[in-house]
């Protein structure tokens, strides 16, 4: 074996490894469909941008939970921090349009969340699933209470009103139909998704999966486990913060509800519902979860939770790995059938 001409195995291995980060047909179709929603469901653009934002939160949970294996119920806190930071930036604007520019707002929201995320990441480095769950939840509840108490800044329980971001990049004004909001949210989601995708397919991403799989061994091969976990927790906080900023900009307010426990719980539910550890799980989960909620809510505004509950229970009892697991099973069954005939 010479160093100049690689062996066929090496060529193949390289192809396989790189192929894993190549875009698949299903993925491309998924994103084309996502953008095509603009024309497919012109009356549902508000709901769709909300789904995109939720999908971004679920994606951030996936980075921590699905890849690094840290159970978290605190992502709502970062969402809320992002929302308030971006909301305040847009509201006060510092007299310049730059501060109220939505894109700058995204960085302000994401950055604020990342700072808090970094600071609190050290709390989740040890402990069992249950401990991490409760610590992240505790942090979120404290943030919630802080938002409630700092009325002079946040508007307390009435929420932060008067968030009027300027046009996106100074060109596109937010409109009532939610057209700009949808395209804007989806583009942000897509960009961050591409980054997350690169991240999880990189050696860094691989190391997260390794940490989740076997912490003893990762230490034995010399991996700085804690540094990796801190890094991914901070990145995920940034993502959730950006999602919060998007929410504040597209709804033009921020309320304590954005920090509330149910945001975190919903994000985790959607991810597990969709299937954790595949990036797409959170997206699919938020699409299906919110669509179901909307459809059922229109049919029975009082009792839609019942059917949602039944779906969750059935999914856990009969399927492994959420919606993606279900799709995988169906695909496998279809292939077997195809192979047999």
């Amino acid at each position: 074996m010479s160093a100049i001409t690689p062996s066929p195995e090496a060529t193949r291995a390289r192809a396989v490894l790189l192929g894993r980060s190549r875009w698949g047909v299903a993925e491309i179709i998924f994103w084309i469909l996502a953008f095509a929603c603009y024309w497919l469901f012109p009356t549902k653009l508000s709901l769709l941008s909300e789904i995109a934002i939720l999908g971004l939160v679920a994606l951030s949970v996936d980075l921590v939970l699905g890849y690094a294996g840290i159970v978290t119920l605190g992502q709502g806190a970062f969402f809320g921090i992002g929302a308030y930071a971006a909301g305040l930036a847009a509201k006060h604007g510092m007299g310049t349009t730059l501060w109220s520019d939505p894109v700058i707002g995204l960085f302000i929201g994401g950055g604020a969340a990342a700072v808090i995320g970094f600071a609190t990441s050290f709390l989740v480095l040890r402990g069992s699933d249950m401990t991490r769950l409760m610590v992240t939840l505790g942090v979120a509840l404290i943030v919630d209470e802080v938002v409630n108490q700092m009325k002079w800044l946040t508007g307390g329980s009435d929420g932060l009103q008067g968030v009027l971001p300027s046009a996106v990049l100074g060109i596109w004004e937010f409109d009532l139909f939610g057209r700009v909001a949808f395209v804007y949210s989806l583009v942000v989601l897509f960009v961050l998704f591409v980054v997350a995708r690169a991240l999880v397919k990189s050696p860094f991403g691989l190391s997260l999966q390794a940490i989740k799989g076997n912490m003893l061994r990762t230490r034995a091969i010399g991996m700085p486990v804690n540094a990796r976990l801190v890094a991914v927790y901070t990145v995920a906080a940034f993502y959730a913060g950006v999602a919060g900023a998007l929410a504040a900009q597209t709804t033009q307010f921020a309320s304590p509800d954005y920090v509330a426990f149910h945001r975190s719980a919903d994000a985790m539910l959607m991810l597990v519902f969709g299937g954790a550890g595949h990036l797409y799980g959170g997206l699919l989960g938020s699409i299906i979860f919110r669509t179901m909620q909307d459809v059922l809510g229109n049919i029975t505004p009082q009792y839609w939770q019942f059917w949602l509950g039944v779906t969750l229970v059935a999914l856990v009892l009969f399927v492994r790995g959420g919606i993606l697991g279900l799709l995988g099973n169906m695909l496998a069954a279809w292939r077997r059938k195809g192979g047999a005939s």
Partner: protein
Amino acid sequence: MFRRQILKSIGVAGLALATGISAASAQEVVKVGLILPMTGPSASTGRQIEAGVRLWMAQNGTTVAGKKIEIIIKDDTGAADQSKRLATELVVNDKVAFLAGFGLTPLALAVGPVASQAKVPAVIMAAGTSTIVASSPYFVRTSFTLPQNTAPMAQWSAANNIKTVVTLVSDYGPGLDSEKAFKAEFEGKGGKVLDTLRAPMMNPEFAAFLQKAKDLKPDALFLFVPSGQGASLMKQVGERELAKAGIKIIGTGDVTDDDQLNGMGDALIGMITSHNYSAAHDSPENKAYVAAFLKANNNMRPNFMSVGGFDGMAAIYKALEKTKGDTDGTKLVEAMKGLALVSPRGPISIDATTRDITQNVYVREVKKVDGQLYNVEFATIPNVKGSN
């Protein structure tokens, strides 16, 4: 006598329904988007309003000025971003002529920009922070505001030998509104507020606050919690025996919510509150209203939320009549300004400048009537403005 009235109203409703349906095909439809919390902690508010709205429609038909009225109910789960999205969808997709509902202040505030941008009137049937109406020129309120309901309590207290008061309110917008209004009015009349206690919203346990109030030994303890939370609070107020310690319990009618009052127990007898509506309000309109409401809703007693919905629907009907079916939002808001009608709660009107509700506020005492607890009104402060 009541029965005859009910039968009559039901007959009218039936007739209207029949004619409405037969004419529907040829008729233009006016849609009203009702955004309410139907699930979650504020679900009872949503249910009361929905029942009030449906009762109005049952009694007054579904056709106004030749147009068929259709309501679309959406559940915002009490989350402001949902209220906003649903409002947008109702305006953009369903082309509603009115938005209505809004169970809590932040939910209403979130919808304000939509109403302004779409020029669609938004009728506030529940939310009670005073500032909401000013935030959009398309807001009209048929519920009440906290200062409106609170100030009379302070006046009555000052006039009835109460010198010192401790206030205990829920720590959120309306609560603070109420605290502020009480303190200003009461101290303006020479009283003294010893302490202002604020209980977190998500809190089932009031022991610490009540004990503190008791230890301060005021003449009275003023209470405000949002509709639906009065039961827990009053249970603990009763348990702490403040009355025995010589502390009078006063508050806004939210605490002695008709929806739950009867279950709260005899400990409440003698409590003084001020509010805009009592199911025991003594008027023929209200007697008919209560009877019909009980019948239609499996004996659920109507509370102040339900009249907010009932009167809100009335305002919508009257506005349409006035514009002769024109659904231009600006004209509809104009038509509602200055509107006056006799509601089950008494005479009400929409202030022409503020678009807020002007109504009588009553001082009431919890009493047992026919074996059931009611807020029995004993003094009226007429025509109190909602906001200035």
